[in-house]
C-alpha cells in the first residue's frame, strides 16, 4: 500500500492533488463526473468581498499548448459564496480551501474575519497574484514588501491555515516567497498565470476583451517547475506546485522539484477526470518504483536521492 497522504499547514489531505482556483468552480460541475472525496483538497474560485461582474468577452484565447484567460474574478461575493455554495461542499469528504482576492488590504482583512470562524472552511488561499484585475491583484504579489505587509496583516486576523499564492511575473520569486514566509504564511502556492496576450491580425486588435490575460496550461510548465524548484529550496513551509499539470508524470515532476502538493487547473477543461486520473497515476508510479510514502519523492530532484 502506498501512502499518498500529505499535510499542508495542518490541512490533512488524502492525496496531494488539489484543484486550482478558478478552474473548478465550487465543485459541483465536476461532482457530476466523480466523487469529490477522490481529490486531495478543493480550492474554490477566487472570491472577493463584493460581487464582481468580471471582464467583457472574449475571456479565453487559446495559444500553443496554453490558454490565456481574462475572467476578471467574476464571482458573487463572499456572503453569497458562504450562503449558497459552501453548504453543498459540507460532507463532500474533501478539505475546502477558499481563495480570496481584493483590491485593498482592508478587503482581504474583512474577508478573513468573516471566514475565520467557519468550520466548513479548512484553509485560506490568498491570491496576491491575479493578473486580470485593474487594482491590487498582481500588484500585491510583485513587490516583496507589499506582499509581506499584506500577509502580516492577514496573519494577525486568522488562525486558519494560510496559503499565499504568488505571482510568477517577478524577477526573483525567491524574494517574495521569503517575505511571505517570514510574515506567517503556512504554505506557498506557485504559480498563478503569466501575463500574456494575443492579437487578432484581421481585426488588428487584442483578442481578449481585457487586452491582456493570464497564461496557463502545459506551455508554462517549465517556468512553473523552475519556480517550485527555486522556492522549495528557499523556504521551510510547504510549496503547492501548479502550472500546466496534465498528467501524473507532470505532477511527479513538480513533486520531485519540491512541491508537497500540486494543483490542477487547465487540465480539468480538457479532461474532467484529470484529478482522479493523476491521483491514480502517482500511486501507480510509486508502486512500480517501490516507494511507499510520497515524502520520499518530495524534492528528490534537488535532494539528490
Amino acid at each position, binding site marked *: 500500500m502506498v501512502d499518498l497522504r500529505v499535510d499542508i499547514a495542518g490541512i490533512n489531505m488524502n492525496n496531494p492533488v488539489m484543484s486550482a482556483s*478558478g*478552474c*473548478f*468552480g465550487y465543485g459541483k*460541475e*465536476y461532482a*457530476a*463526473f466523480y466523487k469529490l472525496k477522490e481529490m486531495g483538497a478543493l480550492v474554490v*474560485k477566487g472570491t472577493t468581498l463584493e460581487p464582481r*461582474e*468580471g471582464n*467583457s*468577452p*472574449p*475571456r*479565453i*484565447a*487559446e495559444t*500553443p*499548448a*496554453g*490558454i490565456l*484567460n481574462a*475572467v476578471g474574478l*467574476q464571482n458573487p461575493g463572499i456572503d453569497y459564496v458562504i450562503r449558497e455554495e459552501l453548504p453543498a461542499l459540507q460532507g463532500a469528504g474533501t478539505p475546502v480551501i477558499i481563495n480570496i482576492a481584493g483590491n485593498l488590504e482592508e478587503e482581504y482583512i474583512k474577508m478573513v474575519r468573516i471566514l475565520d470562524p467557519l468550520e466548513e472552511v479548512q484553509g485560506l488561499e490568498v491570491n496576491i497574484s491575479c493578473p486580470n484585475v485593474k487594482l491590487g491583484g498582481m500588484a500585491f504579489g510583485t513587490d516583496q514588501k507589499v506582499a509581506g505587509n499584506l500577509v502580516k496583516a492577514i496573519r494577525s486576523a486568522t488562525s486558519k491555515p494560510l496559503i499565499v499564492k504568488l505571482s510568477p511575473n517577478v524577477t526573483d520569486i525567491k524574494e517574495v516567497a521569503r517575505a511571505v514566509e517570514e510574515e506567517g504564511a503556512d504554505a506557498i502556492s506557485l504559480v498563478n498565470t503569466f501575463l500574456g496576450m494575443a492579437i487578432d491580425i484581421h481585426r488588428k486588435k487584442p483578442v481578449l476583451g481585457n487586452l491582456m490575460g493570464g497564461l496557463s*496550461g*502545459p*506551455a508554462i510548465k517549465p517556468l512553473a517547475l523552475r519556480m517550485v524548484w527555486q522556492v522549495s529550496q528557499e523556504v521551510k513551509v510547504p510549496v503547492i506546485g501548479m502550472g500546466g499539470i*496534465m498528467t501524473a508524470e507532470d505532477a511527479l515532476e513538480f513533486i520531485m522539484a519540491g512541491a508537497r502538493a500540486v494543483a490542477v487547473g*487547465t487540465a*480539468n*477543461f*480538457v*479532461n*474532467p*477526470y484529470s484529478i482522479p486520473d493523476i491521483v491514480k497515476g502517482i500511486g501507480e508510479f510509486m508502486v512500480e518504483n517501490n516507494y511507499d510514502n510520497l515524502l520520499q519523492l518530495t524534492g528528490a530532484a534537488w535532494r539528490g536521492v
Partner: protein
Amino acid sequence: MSMLKKAQIIEHEKKGPGIYRMDFFSPEISQKALPGQFIHLKVREEGYHPLLRRPFSIYDVDKDRGQVSILYRVVGLGTHIMAQILPGALMEIMGPLGRPFTLSKEAERVLLVAGGMGFAPLHFLIKELVKGNQVVEVITGARTGEELMGEDDLGRSGVKYSVATQDGSRGFQGRVTGLLEKKLDEGNYDFLYSCGPYPMLEKVVSLASTLGLKGEVSLEEVMACGVGACLGCAAPTRGDKGNLDYKKVCQEGPVFSLEEVFFDG
C-alpha cells in the same frame, strides 16, 4: 449529467466549401440530446496543441441508429485537423451540454432565422418542431448560394423555407435580416428562434423587440471547460434589474431568451 465517451465516426462528408458533416455512433447522447444543446469534442487524442475541446451544436440525431451529427466549418487549427479524420476513427466526445431551446407549445406560427453556420443548431430544432401542429417557417442566409447550408436536409424535413444570399445568386438578394424584415411585414409569427453571427443576432433581436415578438437565440462564445466551471464563456445578458449580468454560454446557454440577450457592441 454530461458524459464523456469515445465515439466512433460513422460518416464524414463534405457538404460545401470547407463545410463538413460528421456522424458519431453514440447511443447515450442520441437518447438524451435536445435541440440547442452541443457536444464538446477532443480534436486530437495526443499532444497539447490544440489544447482545449471544441464545441459544436448538435445538428441531427437518429435515436434508432444511436447517431449524433454535427455540421461544421473549417476555421482554424482544430477544425482543420478534424476535416482530415477518417470514418472509423474514435473521438472523445462530451455531452449533451447546455440549455436547449424551449419547444413552445402555445405558439401557432414559428419562424426560424439562420445566418451561415447558425443553421447548425436550428436544423435539429426544425426536425422536432415539424412533429407538432405549429406552422413552422425557416429563413436562412449566406454570402453566396454555394455557401447556403443544409438545403438537402431542409428539403427532406418538409418545412417551408426561403433563402437569402448577399450576392443574389439564390433567393432574396441581401442579408437574411433583410428577408426577415419582409417576412415580419407579411406574416404574423408568435415565436422566433435564431442563430448566427452577433451583428445579425443584434438586428434580429431589435426587429423582434419592436414587434414585441417572443423567442430565443443561441449564442456563441469561446469556451474552455464547457461545463460551467471556468466562467470563460461569459456572454453579456440583462439581469433582473436591467443590469449587466454575464452568463455562462455553456451552462446557462447557449440558448437565451430574446429579452435576456444584450449587445454591447
